[in-house]
């Protein structure tokens, strides 16, 4: 969960600084990866 919060915070900073919607795709991708790893950790896989 901490990883998820961290990526959301970093993503928000990037979005605010870059001011481009293109960055959103990368943030979403990173969030999804973190989300999947969190789920895998949770399921102990």
């Amino acid at each position: 969960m901490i990883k998820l919060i961290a990526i959301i915070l970093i993503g928000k900073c990037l979005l605010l600084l870059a001011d481009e919607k293109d960055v959103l795709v990368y943030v979403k991708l990173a969030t999804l990866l973190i989300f999947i790893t969190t789920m895998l950790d949770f399921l102990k896989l």
Partner: protein
Amino acid sequence: MNDLLNVFIDPLKLAGQSIILVMTYTILFLVLEAFIPKFKKWADTLFIIVLILTLGQTVMDSFSLMGQLVNVASDFFLGVTPILTSLLVVLNSVFSFIAWSPVILFIFEMLMLLCKNILIPAVTVALVLDFCTRFIQDISFSKASDLIRGSVMTMITALLIAMVTVLSFTGVAFFTIDQAIASPAKKVIEQTIPIVGSLIVEGFSIFQKYQSTATTVAGFSAMTAFWIAAFFPAGKLLIHALTFKFLAAIVEPFTGGTISGLLDDVGKSLLLLCAVAILLGIAFVFIWLILMVIMQLGVGKSF
């Protein structure tokens, strides 16, 4: 006496402080936005961060209170289990007559296990997902958090029904159980969302029958102490939850949907935590009342 009063006044003081602080921040951010229009882009994000820094402690306190409550309740049930089991064995003749079943111990142990390992962590996860949703609105986890909250509520409902059912089975021989036992289960099923209010009101009616019996055993002041001890954490969590709901209502016209939505979501999660605390409180009082009734039956007193 002051210490006793502070127990009730402190949460209210904290609520008042939070309301004043958030209103001050709102004014401050509106003034900043008015004088520096470019600031608007950063305003929501900074406001969320300031809110987390200010009110985060209250949320953390609520979760730590809940953790402590579960630990205390767990220890209490662990301590009471041998006494109850011994009484079940010693008073075997009585209990074969009233068809008492030790399954109630299993239900309480299961309740503790679920609270500690599933319910509280699930509420935490829902809270984190809400934060993520509000922080970057393009990446929404709202359905996931709603699903988690709904599942937790369903589990609370199921546990309450399990407790009520067991009590009804065992209570048939004790007293004639009437609508006081039957109606909460129905209402809880009907009104799953505003469960907290329903639990509080109906929880009292569950104990209506038992209360008179137990009061004769323990006395009015002792019973009052049990009640306060059982439901004080839930009351404190309810005040915190309502504070967040109130803040969301105040802030909404001035800051937009993001801030008020986040505050409202936190309020919802704390309300859910409060429902868990009420469930534990009900279990705590159940055990006490059952223990008293068993002891009275053991010494041959009839009701």
